[in-house]
């Protein structure tokens, strides 16, 4: 675990104990990253700021569940920010808290495939994306990083909606095979 990961880990743990000073420190340490997430997906500063507020309210409320998920701390925080921004973007109902929690909890021992990520296997998804055709890999990145919907991806890549859907679903199957190979 890198020094900064350990530091954020500790701040989340102290936030779970209702330590407001730790929560402030956590905000100062991570808000630029999370604002980067909400801004990239929502593409509007006012909405991104509103989202950022909601995200840290959730972080305060859910910090006690962080350890149960087994994710790296920054990945846990980014997921909260990304999911919230996507909820806003898609007009989805905000996640019911208990249901959301059920999704996050690791079952039993750490999943070796998930745990491996923590050990610095960073290049792997890039490698697997590299095996896809360039524009299909771009579509996957666009869906993840920009929150593009099938409709937006179809427009951006100038293909019919059903073609985009087929493309991306096939790409995801290939990616899944590559990632678990």
């Amino acid at each position, binding site marked *: 675990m890198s020094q900064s990961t350990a530091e954020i880990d500790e701040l989340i743990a*102290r936030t779970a*104990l209702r*330590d*407001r*000073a730790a929560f*402030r420190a956590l*905000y*100062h340490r991570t*808000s*630029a*990253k999370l*604002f*980067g*997430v909400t*801004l*990239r997906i929502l593409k509007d*500063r006012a909405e991104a*700021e509103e989202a*950022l*507020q909601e995200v*840290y*309210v959730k972080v*305060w409320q859910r910090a006690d569940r962080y350890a149960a998920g*087994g*994710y*790296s701390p920054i*990945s846990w925080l*980014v*997921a909260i920010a990304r*999911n919230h921004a*996507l909820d806003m973007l*898609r007009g989805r*109902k905000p*996640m019911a808290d208990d*249901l959301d929690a*059920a*999704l996050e909890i*690791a*079952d039993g021992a750490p*999943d070796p*495939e*998930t745990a*491996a*990520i923590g050990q610095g296997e*960073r290049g*792997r*998804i*890039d490698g697997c994306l590299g095996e896809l055709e360039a524009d299909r890999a771009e579509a996957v990145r666009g*869906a*993840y*990083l920009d*929150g593009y919907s*099938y409709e937006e991806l179809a427009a951006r890549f100038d293909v019919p909606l059903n073609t985009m859907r087929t493309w*991306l679903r096939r790409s*995801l*199957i290939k*990616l*899944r*095979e590559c990632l*678990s190979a």
Partner: protein
Amino acid sequence: MSRDEQGEGGGEDRVLVAEFALGLLDPAEHEVMRRRIAADPELRREYRLWRGRLGTLDEGFAEAAPPAGVLERIEGRLFPAAPAREGRARLWNSLGFWRGLAAAGFALAIVAVGVDLLPRPPLTGPELVAALEAAGSDVKFVAFYDRRAGTLRLAALSGSAVPDKDFELWAIEGKNAPISMGVIPMDKSNVAMPPSVKQAFGPGTVLAVTLEQKGGSPTGKAQGPVVAVGTAMAI
């Protein structure tokens, strides 16, 4: 292809989980999938796999400094009773200032041990500082009293809040009973000075922090352990 990937239905579900993780499903499909994943350990495992793998793309999110004042608005929503911080002087919020003050406070505290038996030094200025700490405790505060303004400011240097407990601040003059100055947050705060404390506050006044039940000692007398204590010194 691994052995458990051959089932037709399983393959379709895997794509659905991947689409869910990417956020590609429409709101109705998304909601259905969310409930299915929450209820099914196999799907949950698949979701975690995608989240973990896709999470390595997180580096692609460039940092962007959020506008000023967002933290204050978040705190205003989470802790409505907390005092507004936005109007605080910049110096007060400067970590460097507090570190400097803390260093000065600890230095003075060390000197204080040596001069404890001597007559109290004459008042040299309107400001007083106290470094609060105790053996066996990681809770450390620094207190700063401006006699002209009549304000006592307090900041935690280390230690963390204890669940279902509160820290309470006490002022002690000589052999008098400690006077409660109320519950204090693990943060920076302005402490309201009871008139009796304000009147007597000077070099030699002892400040102590005890760990009390939520809301502070109900009896007006300290009940919990002393986690930090220090003597006010003129600076």
